[in-house]
């Protein structure tokens, strides 16, 4: 691994920002940033949501025009001419939601807009040859003629990276590249990143996952309120210090697990099967208990939650709530019985983004009077939940689209609290929200358990489960692989169960 300190003295930066600012009406999103990116380094940009990371990346990739300052690429000051220009200068962006055309082939996507042509016709032979070479460099062995829609998410991401190589990128910006990847795929991605860096390509790595920053990056730039707090060598940092720099204050316990008297079984699930997704899954969860679900991506955790909640039809199995057998055909039946499900994808499945905070809060349980909506009661309810959950919004009518991730998540919680659910499934509740909001979210989950509700917490980030849960169920390939009591908790045990590796005797 190259030593960044030595590199800083000997290599000329591939990107240099000088006093770069971006002002939106009323907001100074990026404020006088100076930053140097060196060839061959993996450089993390860390900070809470709204710290200005994304805007800074957009300035670099020329999606946005800076209101002040200079951007230098390869030693030359560049004029602003839009994203195509930035690409031609060697700045490539791998978006969180990939910018691929799903109905075109891999090769067609790789050369989209720059098709190798001869006499006006696309030279398919050359396109294919070059595609194979590019794919090899990102460790992807698929036929370039395959449609992108037939690839897995991890494979599509490789295509995105190959696309960056196709334009001869000097800097590749990756925005939360592991958000949808399984652990093994993350490891492979890191291999590709290291390989690119060893060829002198600079990687700008944006992530909320602190462990990844420590695993893969050489240097870290921390942003807060649009400014750079500090740029440091990753080796000089530890997690505590990084978090402190990001939030600008000492954080309390990230995982405030409450001491709760665990009560009777509230939800009992027996023998649920659904096609290839779920096989004979059984578990129970008690009042006041936080039950964790661990497993690799695709192990069936969300599928099981959705099955219990009636979101997907099941082939067999029973669900009992407080001793009564339920007949759950659809989400409405589950909600009426007292089960709530906070989806993993809160924008895609959790919120009506164009509606206000008040309308989302009451969506699952509309207050009515004589058949008409009781709008006053609705505002009252929303105001109460806003104060209780500390939802930060300038107004109750604010479209939830315009709220931060953490506050959106709280609106989802508010909606489910309105249903008086006895059992709440939280599916990756901390995904995509910043550190401060995470602590708040887990505090909230703890409070809900303290009120005697049964909580099921699905998470791919083990520290969350190990710190918050009373028991952890591990799933593998659609089955329950095992269950751990609190005194048995360890990352190794969970990973062993989740991957099916034989336990060392």
């Amino acid at each position, binding site marked *: 691994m190259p030593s960044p300190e030595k590199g800083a003295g000997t290599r000329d930066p591939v990107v240099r920002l000088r006093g770069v600012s971006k002002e939106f009406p009323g907001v100074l999103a990026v404020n006088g940033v100076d930053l140097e990116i060196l060839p061959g380094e993996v450089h993390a940009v860390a900070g809470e949501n709204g710290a200005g990371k994304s805007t800074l990346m957009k300035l670099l990739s020329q999606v946005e025009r800076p209101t002040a300052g200079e951007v230098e690429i390869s030693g030359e000051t560049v004029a602003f001419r839009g994203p195509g220009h930035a690409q031609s200068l060697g700045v490539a962006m791998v978006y969180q939601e990939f910018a691929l055309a799903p109905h075109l082939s891999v090769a067609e996507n790789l050369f989209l807009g720059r098709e190798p042509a001869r006499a006006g016709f696309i030279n398919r032979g050359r396109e294919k040859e070059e595609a194979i070479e590019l794919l090899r460099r990102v460790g992807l062995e698929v036929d370039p003629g395959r449609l992108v829609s037939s690839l897995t998410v991890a494979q599509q991401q490789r295509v995105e990276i190959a696309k960056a190589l196709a334009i001869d990128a000097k800097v590749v910006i990756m925005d939360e590249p592991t958000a949808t990847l399984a652990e093994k795929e993350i490891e492979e991605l890191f291999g590709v990143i290291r390989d690119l860096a060893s060829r002198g390509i600079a990687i700008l790595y944006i992530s909320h996952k602190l462990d990844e920053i420590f695993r893969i990056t050489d240097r870290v730039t921390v942003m807060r309120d649009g400014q750079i707090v500090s740029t440091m060598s990753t080796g000089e940092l530890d997690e505590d210090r990084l978090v402190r720099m990001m939030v600008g204050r000492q954080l309390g316990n990230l995982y405030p697990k409450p001491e709760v008297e665990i009560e009777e079984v509230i939800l009992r699930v027996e023998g649920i099967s659904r096609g290839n997704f779920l096989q004979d899954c059984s578990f129970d969860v008690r009042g006041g208990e936080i039950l964790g679900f661990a497993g690799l991506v695709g192990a069936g955790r969300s599928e099981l939650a959705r099955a219990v909640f009636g979101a997907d039809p099941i082939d067999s199995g029973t669900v009992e709530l407080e001793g009564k057998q339920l007949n759950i055909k659809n989400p409405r039946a589950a909600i009426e019985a007292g089960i709530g499900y906070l989806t993993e994808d809160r924008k*895609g*499945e959790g919120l009506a*983004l*164009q509606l206000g905070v008040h309308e989302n809060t009451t969506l699952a349980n*509309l207050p009515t009077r004589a058949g008409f909506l009781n709008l006053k009661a609705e505002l009252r309810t929303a105001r109460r939940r806003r104060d209780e959950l500390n939802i930060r919004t*300038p107004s109750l009518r604010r479209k939830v689209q*315009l709220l931060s991730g953490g506050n959106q998540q709280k609106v989802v919680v508010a909606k489910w609290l309105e249903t008086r659910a006895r059992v709440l499934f939280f599916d990756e509740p901390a995904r995509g929200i910043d550190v401060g909001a995470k602590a708040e979210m887990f505090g909230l989950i703890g409070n809900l358990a303290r009120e005697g509700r049964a909580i099921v917490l699905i998470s791919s980030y083990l520290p969350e489960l190990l710190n918050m849960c009373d028991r952890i169920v591990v799933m593998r390939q659609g089955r329950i692989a095992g269950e751990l009591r609190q005194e048995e908790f360890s990352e190794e045990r969970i990973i062993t169960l989740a991957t099916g590796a034989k336990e060392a005797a």
Partner: protein
Amino acid sequence: MTSTSAQEERGTSALRERLSGAVSQLAAAGALIVVFVFLSFASSDFLSADNLFNIGSQTAVVAVIAIGMTLVIITAGIDLSVGSVAALSGVMGVTLMVSFGLPVPLGILGGILVGAIAGLVNGLLVAFAGINPFIATLGMLSVARGLTYISTGAVAVFGAPDSFRLLGQGVLGPIPIPILVIVVVAIAGYVVLSRTRLGRYAYAMGSNLEAARLSGIPIKRYLTMVYVIAGALAGLGGMIAASRVNSGQPNYGLGLELDVIAAAVIGGASLFGGQGTVVGTLIGAFLIALIRNGAVLLNVDVFYQSVIIGVVIWIAVFWDQYRRRLAASE
């Protein structure tokens, strides 16, 4: 921050949230006023009682159907069949009066019912069979028109009682009855959209269908109801149109869906769903009617009317998207 200033901030901000939703309507209303003032000066006949009366009655068909269309568009759907359904309702309603001797009010109700049934089929196809609304209602556009020709032999149905004229041509005191119909349907539409589950769920389904389903909303039932209402209002529109010529015309309403969709879109309804209001749609309907009326008064070639309306749609949608981009980048 003191609590009073926090409250004030919330107050002004809440006001701004409310206003931002009304901006596209304000723009359309502004356009409506500009066109109105312009025509008042440009044509001496424009402000005559006869002409205004005429505009009101002409608008009724588009406005009434467009309110149903707004509901559908809010759910991120579309109903292309309204023109054909209006024609089918018109000939069926008149036939019920002429051939089956039904009294006029029952004949009108019969026409509305025919529209509602067509809407029910649309709704079942969309909600239960999972057919894309564009295609489902495109099929109904063809089916309803075909049934109209089959049932009439492609010949207009005459002979309705004279009192049937009242619906499209009558007055109650100084007020044209078609205008009263607009008012009643608009108030009902406003109440449904802002004060009932159906309205709220329409916005929620249009904004995020899966979130609506996972929130326990019976989406199939409510989607179906939305298309039934749109069909019934197309039926009512068809009866008003039939009353204006006191006959059921099998060729009525060819291309009517364009004016209806345009009215909703000019009024701020988003084809992506989740947005649209009755007030906006009414403004859109009247704007189209004014443009058509003004074109006639100013002797503009009828073919240019279509061009003008098309350009107005472009401007309205462009303005709306521009405004929304501004709001999103806030």
